[in-house]
């Protein structure tokens, strides 16, 4: 028997985690954020339970500010695979017209993402939520467990994390507590792309370079996805060959200039890259412990 390769080991580990949750939690859900990590997570989940259907629904916490191509891709994916897709958008936030431009990235992220997520989890009574986060993304994530226990208020206590020896996940929890579960914990950005290429997994076309209308703001290249994005005096829209390394709310996600219009192009570019993918994320930048704080408050 040939020893498993690096990617086969990561694949088997993720499938093990997915099955462990389905077998021991009452009402799991897969947090589907439409990006490449979610695409890989969904693909692994389909494999874990094949030939059966997914034993849990997908949940997308929308903010109203996602790229239009993301929403189209989400709906097409759900239809193609026959998935049970739930979409939640914070109704109060929507009524108040919360947006990244009018209220700033911190308020927008807190109300539409963190609060929206908590509302959705409470509304449906989910006790375990899969996320596509990886430990190589950010320093505080490097310390998070595969099974991250959250209080009934969804808070994370980094100092009271459970020991996680071998693959003996302690899936017991008190009433009201829940888990965030990260099957891709040990994957890197390179692993994700290698796996997408190996398995031919469809991803949102925004990951591939093409001429797009962008505005340069605070050094970031922002794609003007709709009319709500107002230009400041002196700003102009120019067409540049760009792609995205991560996807989120379009006014908060910077594009990178790139010629990589195909998967091999992306793989080559990524191996040569000297900038981490989260650089395009405007919400990580406020303070060294920004992500850790958001996570404590209940952000994914």
């Amino acid at each position, binding site marked *: *028997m040939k020893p*498993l*390769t*690096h*990617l*086969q*080991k990561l*694949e*088997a580990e993720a*499938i*093990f985690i997915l*099955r*462990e949750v389905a*077998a*021991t939690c*009452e009402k799991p859900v897969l947090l589907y954020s439409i990006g490449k990590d979610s695409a890989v997570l969904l693909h692994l989940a389909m*494999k*874990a*339970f*094949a*030939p*059966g*259907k997914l034993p849990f629904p997908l949940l997308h916490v929308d903010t109203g500010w996602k790229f239009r191509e993301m929403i189209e891709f989400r709906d097409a994916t759900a239809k193609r695979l026959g998935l049970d897709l739930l979409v939640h958008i914070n109704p109060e936030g929507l009524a108040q017209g919360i947006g990244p431009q009018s209220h700033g990235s911190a308020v927008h992220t807190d109300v539409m993402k963190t609060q929206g997520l908590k509302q959705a989890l409470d509304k449906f009574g989910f*006790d*375990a939520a899969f996320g596509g986060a990886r*430990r190589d993304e*950010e*320093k*505080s*994530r*490097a*310390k998070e467990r595969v099974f991250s226990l959250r209080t009934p208020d969804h808070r994370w206590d*980094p*100092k009271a994390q459970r*020991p996680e*020896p*071998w*693959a*003996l996940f*302690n*899936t*017991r*929890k*008190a*009433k009201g507590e829940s888990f965030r579960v990260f099957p891709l914990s*040990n994957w*890197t950005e*390179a*692993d994700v792309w*290698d796996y997408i290429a*190996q398995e031919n997994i469809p991803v949102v076309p925004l990951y591939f370079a093409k001429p797009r209308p962008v505005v340069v703001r605070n050094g970031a290249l922002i794609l003007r996805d709709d009319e709500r994005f107002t230009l400041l005096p002196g700003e102009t829209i120019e067409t540049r060959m760009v792609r995205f390394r991560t996807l989120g709310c379009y006014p908060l996600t910077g594009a990178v200039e790139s010629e990589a219009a195909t998967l091999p192009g992306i793989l080559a570019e990524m*191996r*040569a890259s*000297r*900038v*981490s993918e989260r*650089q395009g994320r405007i919400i990580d930048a406020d303070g*060294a*412990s920004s992500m*850790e704080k958001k996570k404590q408050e209940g952000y994914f």
Partner: protein
Amino acid sequence: MRTAALQRQPETGFGPAVAPVPAPASKSLLRFITCGSVDDGKSTLLGRLLWETHSVFEDQAEALANDSRRFGTTGDTPDLALLVDGLAAEREQGITIDVAYRYFGTANRAFIAADTPGHEQYTRNMATGASTADCAVILIDARKGLLAQTRRHSCIVSMIGVRDVIIAINKMDLVGYDEATFRRIEADYRALIPGLGFTTVHFVPLSAREGDNVAKASAMMPWYSGPSLLTLLETIETSTGEDAKFRLPIQWVNRPNAEFRGFSGTIASGEICPGDSIVALPSGRTSRIARILTPSGDAQSAGAGAAVTLTLADEIDISRGDVLVASGQATRRVTARLLALSETAVVPGKPYLIKLGTAVTGARLIALHHAIDVHDYTERPAAELAMNALGLATLHIETPIYATRYADCRTLGSLLLIDPLTNEAVALGTVEHTAADAGDKKTVQARAGATAFGRIALAAGLIVPGASRDEVMHRISWRIASALLFAGLALAVTGSVTIALGAGFADLVLRPALRVLHDRLWQLGLATRHRPVPPALGIDGGGI
């Protein structure tokens, strides 16, 4: 942002040149831990490895520059430890609290490094990091030599079954790159090795801060001709010494429709092909493999580490927590090394839950044989195991489960003890032996073709799976004594030897048969009354 130490080797800094990366299909994976005492420089060493393998991105280097100015301990030089100390409390206190996992790679290998804490109060986190490691890098500060923590960590690394160890003697720059210091520490450590069961032990003199012998040979230590740490990590071949028997703990029963009934799990050891016969434990029912579904579709074979779904030739009852094996038997008693994880001590007699493989059931310590002094590795009597203490204990398990010696199969030889009231894991453990090992030939073998007598005897309660030989003999002699008494009474009442012998024989044979029938009827009755409870919930608590 490149200063002093980093400028010394400009070719390893951020340049356009990137190490060529082969097709990922051929790449192997090595998981290792770095451990050592406080301030031995573990985080710095890992930061250095990330730096030297071009795994630090420009924006992270910028953040590092900012953090170094705020929290750094290295003056104007970037503090590489800050690359890995992720929590705010860690950066402020300059210590590592929790296991941090780091990812980097070279042309041939991908690495997952667990940076584990040195402080004694976080020993459990160190054990966690070691549990998935193929290899351990134990740091020793050249100025301090062997410390209590060095012995402790070596002991835990050994208990967790890591067999390949690299002793990194760090901070050589602070002892003037002195060979005598290195040799003395090497000799001291070699004196410790017997009893730890390591297969290979390498010694590397290095300076994580200056980069000597981390990624390339040091000009400062011409007396050392061995490989650098990175070269060692790239080339080391590790082995766990596990056996090759087929074992599959069942995680999930996949039943999408009436035609398909699959059993999903990750193969713990060995290999399987369609047509192979298997035994499901603890039930002992047998069947043959019909199909093997892997993540890449139907396969003609699958081996250890593969996440599979199997279908069987016969409809037999299997649920989560069961184990499919080529041969073997379930047990209700294991003797295991334990490491206490929680503030609450582990005490004999207290009801716990044991998680072993995918099985969860009740368990208690029936004997705490001794605690192990991790400083001189001696055994001494103990009434309980306080946090971070190591000991050897025998566990009684409520319902029979399949377990192996940890040395034979890590997945089915490792366990977690959980307090059912707080849901806290109180101990992790590695199985030294099971009652099934001890009574291998003497108790009923739940293997393919177990005898009808065996099954009746089992059902009649004469033989309990996993019971020791003494327990079985005890039950049988009691059965005979009861029959003799019954025959004696019959003789006294009737005066007929024939009737007495007949009555005695009937009692000996028919009573167990009646018990089987009686139990069956009760089971049927219970099944009708409690039908809504799925078996998985009964075993696992359903995650409640």
